[in-house]
């Protein structure tokens, strides 16, 4: 049974959601304010944390910031529907997924399961331990990224997204496939989660030294990791 920390200031909502999630075989603890949520999160007792942004004392983003570097429990951020800014900031802070609130509980459960599968998968040792594409080397066992021998700090989700993209380096990967392979769930309408993760990875890796784009957007389809050697030969 998976243990979930549910942090939301709406007590009644927490009660209902606990009931729902218990029926779906989760063990749920609730926190009604940011400080309690942070305290409980730092115990490391949870498989996953569901964090609402609007909370008294410490808001969700502050909790996320204070958690970073101390515990690496995956986080799903609940953002207020219609507040695009919160959503973007939440992902920039390094949440693993987001869900607009009010949300369908079935969707929440689907996201929880996908995230848990991802975490478990990343814990299993890979057969192929290292993968190099151009000046970029990623270690699948250590889950680290080296760019010209400089280490790049990626979150677990970002690592998964980059890995999925590198598996098809030099070819266009559509967003459905990318979402399925890296977030282990289906792409839903108006779901820009994958775009947000990629924009963060892009920022962290930067362009090629000659100014060429490392990760290109192919309009309406998806993304491509550009391999420079291939482009030159072709």
């Amino acid at each position, binding site marked *: 049974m998976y243990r979930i920390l549910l942090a939301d200031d709406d007590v009644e909502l927490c009660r209902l959601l606990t009931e*729902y999630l218990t029926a779906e075989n989760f063990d749920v603890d609730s926190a009604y304010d940011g400080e309690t949520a942070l305290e409980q999160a730092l115990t490391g007792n949870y498989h996953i944390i569901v964090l609402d942004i609007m909370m008294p004392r410490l808001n969700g983003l502050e909790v996320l910031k204070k958690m970073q570097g101390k515990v690496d429990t995956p986080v799903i951020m609940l953002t*207020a*529907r*219609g507040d695009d800014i919160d959503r973007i900031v939440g992902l920039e802070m390094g949440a693993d997924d987001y869900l607009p609130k*009010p949300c369908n509980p079935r969707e929440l459960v689907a996201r929880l399961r996908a995230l848990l599968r991802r975490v478990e998968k990343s814990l299993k040792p890979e057969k192929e331990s290292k993968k190099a594409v151009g000046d970029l080397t990623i270690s699948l066992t250590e889950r680290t990224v080296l760019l010209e021998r400089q280490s790049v700090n990626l979150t677990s989700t970002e690592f998964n997204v980059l890995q999925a993209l590198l598996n098809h380096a030099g070819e266009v990967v559509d967003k459905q496939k990318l979402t399925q392979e890296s977030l282990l769930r289906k792409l839903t309408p108006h779901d820009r989660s994958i775009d947000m993760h990629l924009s963060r990875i892009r920022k962290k890796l930067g362009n090629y030294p000659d100014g060429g784009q490392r990760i290109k957007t192919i*309009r309406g389809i998806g993304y491509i990791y550009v391999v420079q050697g291939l482009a030159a030969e072709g």
Partner: protein
Amino acid sequence: MALFGASSALLVAHFKTVQGPKPLQTARLLRHLQGMMRRNADRELISDWLRQYQDDVFKIYIVDEKGDELLQRVVPEALLQALKEKPPMPLRGFSRFSRPGMPPLMDRAELEQPLFIKPVVLNGELFHLLIDNRRLRGLARLFHPFGIAGRIVIAFILSGAICFFLASYLIIPIKKLQSATHRIAGGQFSDSIQAEIIARKDEIGDLGRDFEYMAKRIESALLSQQRLLRDVSHELRSPLARLQIALGLAHQRSNGLIEPELDRIELEVERLNDLVAQSLSLARLNNQIQLAEKKPLNLNEILIQAVLDADYEAQEKQCRVVLAESAQCTILGDSTLMLSALENLLRNAVNYTPVDTQVEVSIELSDDEIVVTISDQGDGVPEESLDDLFKPFFRVDEARTHLNGGYGIGLAIAERAVHLHQGRIQASNSENGGLIMRIVLPLLIDFPLGQAVEK
């Protein structure tokens, strides 16, 4: 202008066009001479006396018996002629002149003679005092410092100055008030009236203060309306969130017994959710005066993404959304906002286009503008309602209960978003019945297209 004309006329009328001194001045001159005669002034003294009038506008001359002027000036021919014609009439004493303290012996008519000649005996020598009293004629009259032209010029300068002063005092503030009301109409309520008008103590100042008060009242009314929409939407979110979870619980426990009903409830909850989210988006856009973040955007890419998304949704009702014409172009703006504006417009078009038809989208460039056209094949909208389409929750026909409901908030959001991009949306009916939306946006010209543009 009437004021200007009147003041000019007044000034022109005020001056007379006579070359010589006024009768009273002439009499005074004569009295001076009389005094000098009594004191037996010599030629030198008379010359000195005459010299002080040398620079006057009105020329007075004194000539001796030989016809030489005392200050060697050229005497007007007419005066010399008159002197010749007039028989020399030596004065017997000074009795012809007034005595000190007595009224002048000469009457006004005599003093105003056009060619005034007065014999004077000084030190036993006969002199003549000559004054040119003729009226000025022709060009001389026109260009005399107090002639018509001179007076008109002076009148123009003076009344022009007065008019300028009056205009700057009365008309300029009214112009400023007018521009302030334009600002109020454009939605800028605070500080719309200039401080210099508010500070005035006259009626214009009163008017300015009243305007300011009115603007504040309108602003607060508008704000409270927007705040109500925002607060209601905000407050609806928490019960909706709980409702959705409770619905999930009901699903878990129904064992498939009331599944269709629960699905129906779920659909309506989803619609409510969308409505709340849109209301909040609109409220946020209404609060924005300008875009928080502006970047060069490739509008074509954004449009393609919106068209592909809309086409995907449209296929559910056997419709298509096609991009008939595309052009590479760059705008300055916010990509998320622009995308949501286009999505809302496309979704609306898909909603109203009949089954098995297509929504046509095109993008065209002019010198400095981009025109995106979205046309559906629906029934169009009555001409008088075209402008109202962009009002939140507008319905074309109050009584109509269309399956799709009203136009909701989507178009209001799109309009506001385009407005924030310095653009405009026009709705019109096409000849074959559908509705055409034209989005006009300023083209970012100086930006080379090859450069990387955020999508």
